[in-house]
């Protein structure tokens, strides 16, 4: 099987080389049948990589430990579903996933454009195959997923227990889809510049795929945040970690592009800017991949022994230099058709939003790469922490949310003051009412959080007003009932109203972030059974310890050998609120040197948090039991000495019983955070709004639009 995988990779590399040659020759010589052949080689690449991916997936599902990567990242005790996801937990597997997803998305993009923009598409084909070829070459020469070892080990090391979490299964494919989708606008943008056809056609493709990239990347980031919150014994959802930042940067420039593109569509302005944003988004997406692979920055995500730094630096350097050369040498084609008419117009609000997004991206870029910058400039590696990021990102986020409320209600070209006042009065009053309500409720500290709540209220007011006006207009014209009018309104103007829902979702998300980061109560302390503590308005009592043994009965279904935890009673003003049971799982290390008993619990220990999530607040708990007491350690030592491997579980059972009988004080991490749930709800709204906006218009609408445009063309001809 491994041979088949290796053959697939070699074949894929050959197909890439052929496809690049064929498309470039085709477009240069004008023999477009060669360009067509180049496009078909992308389909072939997708087919070949699908087979390669299937080979690896099957090896994981069949526990084929002859594959080095399977032995390293999976095991028989890893639950089945997580075995399937373990494919992309290794460096090699994730490279294959990257290349495979790229080939699928490229095929889709080239299939959609097969009868249009043939020159642009031919260059895009060559660029996409070049990128695909780069990743395949890495797998052929540096890190092959199909390396084998003989004799095959009887058991693998197992998937890192930290990754045994449902959202972790879909987080990497989502993020990688986002990254690879960023390559499509990049390739078509470069293709348009190379072919000197910088018209509206490539923008349509770029817009659709940039939107999809934005959606997937956003979903991936949110799933990662959710995993961090609900799985790591940390209780946070964002830590300004280098790899988190790396995924946020292309998302920010992508967001900027999706907005400024509208100005180009409507007014023919900002062409250089848009092209630069597309190329920057692509380069940032590659840099995101590079950060994970190279281990160049300290991150909790960095892969071990990553050695792929140099090839990535070369690729990023080539991409950046190529992009700059193309934009500069083709600047005459990218001249604006109009100029900004007024500072009080939708164009200028969009421009401001773009500047804020790019500034955010720059701040994050600087902070993320600061260790490298500082080492290069001063010879001393130094890094900036979350407070530095917060100092700049919080005010910028405030402006961004405010602009997302102003943009939709201000007129294109030139808005009059009277008009702006009419549209902004209601949202401003709602924001003011929110401020009064907050102050009346006693919220007087944390000015930034209060400002964010008011900005959120402003956005809700402004978008709500747009919906109400739209529904009212439809009711007046068509005499529909309110719900029917609302549905029809959204269906007829998917892009517009989908976008509005995204804005509301972002505002809700930011309100959740502001509330949970500013008004959180946290406590870390040791407790014995019967002990209690207060966190915020809640009393948390440690009722009794818990213990489960054998992977099959692991309460969290992640296959831990031993799981020790606690039952906690959460009450507020004497009233019972929830019963929580956080635990810590101990996993088999598969390392005989630790002894017959020791290795069963000698692997990574992982927190399984327990929380009571609510609309107004989350009560979040994690436990770190102490198993290094002399009494418990003696059981392990004696077991190691006296028990053969097949009876070693007896000692684990004995250890669990001893723990229950005489539990040592355990360390608890307790957090009460308000409005965390609104981060996830806001995220879902953004995703839903995005789906509405990206969904193709119903065929009837499209047909009507076509008829109307034909009529207009006919009129124009008649006039001529």
């Amino acid at each position, binding site marked *: 099987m491994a041979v088949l995988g290796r053959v697939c990779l070699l074949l894929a590399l050959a197909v890439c080389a052929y496809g690049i040659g064929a498309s470039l020759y085709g477009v240069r010589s004008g023999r477009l049948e060669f360009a067509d052949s180049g496009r078909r080689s992308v389909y072939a690449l997708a087919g070949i990589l699908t087979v390669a991916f299937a080979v690896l997936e099957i090896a994981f599902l069949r526990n084929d430990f002859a594959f080095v990567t399977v032995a390293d990242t999976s095991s028989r005790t890893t639950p089945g579903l997580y075995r399937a996801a373990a494919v992309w937990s290794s460096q090699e597997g994730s490279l294959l996933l990257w290349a495979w997803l790229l080939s699928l998305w490229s095929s889709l993009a080239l299939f959609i454009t097969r009868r249009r923009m043939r020159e642009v598409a031919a260059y895009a084909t060559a660029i996409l195959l070049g990128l695909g070829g780069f990743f395949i070459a890495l797998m052929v020469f540096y890190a092959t997923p199909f390396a084998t070892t003989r004799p095959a080990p009887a058991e693998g090391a*197992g998937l890192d227990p930290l990754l045994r979490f449902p959202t972790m299964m879909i987080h990497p494919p989502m993020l990688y889809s986002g990254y690879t989708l960023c390559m499509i606008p990049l390739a078509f943008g470069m293709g348009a510049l190379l072919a000197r056809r910088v018209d509206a056609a490539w923008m349509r493709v770029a817009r659709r795929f940039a939107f999809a990239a934005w959606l997937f990347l956003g979903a991936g980031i949110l799933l990662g945040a959710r995993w961090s919150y609900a799985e790591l014994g940390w209780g946070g959802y964002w830590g300004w970690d280098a790899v988190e930042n790396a995924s946020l940067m292309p998302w920010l420039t992508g967001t900027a592009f999706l907005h400024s593109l509208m100005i180009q569509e409507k007014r023919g302005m900002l062409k250089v800017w848009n092209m630069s944003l597309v190329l920057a988004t692509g380069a940032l997406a590659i840099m995101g991949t590079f950060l994970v692979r190279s281990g160049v920055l300290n991150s*909790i995500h960095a892969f*071990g022994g990553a050695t792929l730094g140099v090839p990535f630096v070369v690729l990023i350097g080539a991409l950046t230099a190529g992009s700059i050369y193309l934009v500069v040498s083709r600047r005459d084609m990218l001249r604006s058709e109009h100029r900004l008419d007024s500072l009080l117009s939708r164009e200028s609000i969009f421009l401001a939003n773009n500047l804020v997004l790019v500034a955010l991206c720059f701040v994050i870029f600087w902070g993320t790469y600061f260790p490298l910058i500082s080492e290069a400039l001063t010879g001393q590696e130094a890094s900036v*922490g979350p407070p530095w990021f917060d100092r700049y990102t919080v005010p910028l986020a405030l402006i961004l949310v405010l602009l997302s409320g102003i943009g939709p209600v201000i007129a294109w070209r030139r808005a009059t003051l009277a008009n702006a006042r009419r549209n902004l009065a209601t949202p401003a009053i709602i924001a003011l009412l929110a401020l009064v309500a907050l102050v009346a409720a006693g919220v007087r500290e944390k000015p930034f959080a209060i400002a964010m709540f008011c900005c959120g209220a402003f956005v809700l007011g402004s978008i709500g007003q747009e919906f109400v006006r739209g529904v009212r207009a439809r009711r007046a014209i068509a005499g529909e009932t309110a719900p029917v009018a609302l549905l029809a309104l959204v269906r007829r103007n998917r892009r517009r109203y989908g976008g509005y829902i995204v804005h509301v979702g972002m505002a809700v998300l930011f309100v959740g972030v502001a509330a949970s980061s500013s008004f959180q109560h946290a406590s870390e302390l040791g407790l014995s059974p019967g002990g209690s503590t207060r966190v915020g308005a809640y009393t948390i009592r440690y009722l009794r310890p818990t213990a489960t043994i054998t992977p099959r009965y692991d309460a969290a279904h992640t296959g831990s050998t031993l799981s020790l935890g606690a039952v906690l009673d959460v009450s507020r003003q004497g009233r019972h609120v929830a019963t929580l049971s956080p635990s810590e799982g101990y996993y088999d290390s598969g390392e005989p040197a630790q002894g017959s008993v020791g290795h069963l619990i000698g692997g990574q220990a992982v927190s399984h948090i327990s929380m009571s999530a609510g609309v107004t607040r989350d009560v979040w708990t994690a436990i770190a039991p102490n198993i290094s007491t002399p009494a418990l350690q003696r059981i392990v030592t004696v077991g190691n000495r006296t028990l053969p491997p097949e009876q070693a579980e007896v000692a684990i059972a004995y250890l669990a019983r001893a723990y229950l009988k005489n539990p040592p004080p355990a360390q608890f991490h307790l957090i009460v955070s308000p409005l965390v749930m609104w981060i996830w709800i806001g995220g879902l709204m953004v995703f839903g709004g995005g789906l509405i906006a990206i969904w193709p218009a119903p065929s009837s609408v499209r047909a009507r639009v076509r008829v109307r445009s034909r009529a207009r063309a006919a009129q124009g001809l008649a006039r001529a």
Partner: protein
Amino acid sequence: MNPARKRTARLIVALSAAVVLASALIYTSFSAASPALSPSQLVRQAQPGRSYQLTGTVAKGSVRHEANGIAFAVEDRAGGTTIPVNYTGTVPDPFREGREVIVTVQKQGGRFIGERNSLITKCPSKYKTAPPGEKQNY
């Protein structure tokens, strides 16, 4: 003012604002950054009240659970100098003796106090099995 001059003026104002903001950003990043030092460097350079990023490995047998956190010692990668650290806050799951860690510390008196929640365990093989030497030995 004619439109062309107005545009130029506007561009200059915008660019100067961008330059000022970028300089502020760059200046603060240098002044707010904590240098990354190994234990032997920190012993020589530490000034009370300044933050440093201490990097090294957790010394064998040095981890102690205390009432409000943990105490451990960070050792040079090559061995030699060790620095005891008192730390409160979240301890990452992969933290254990022999692992490489990064923790932001401040010198207070003769002791080094870890900044709350600043501990990062840099597991050199996060997604792979750890080499035998790194495992916790029972």
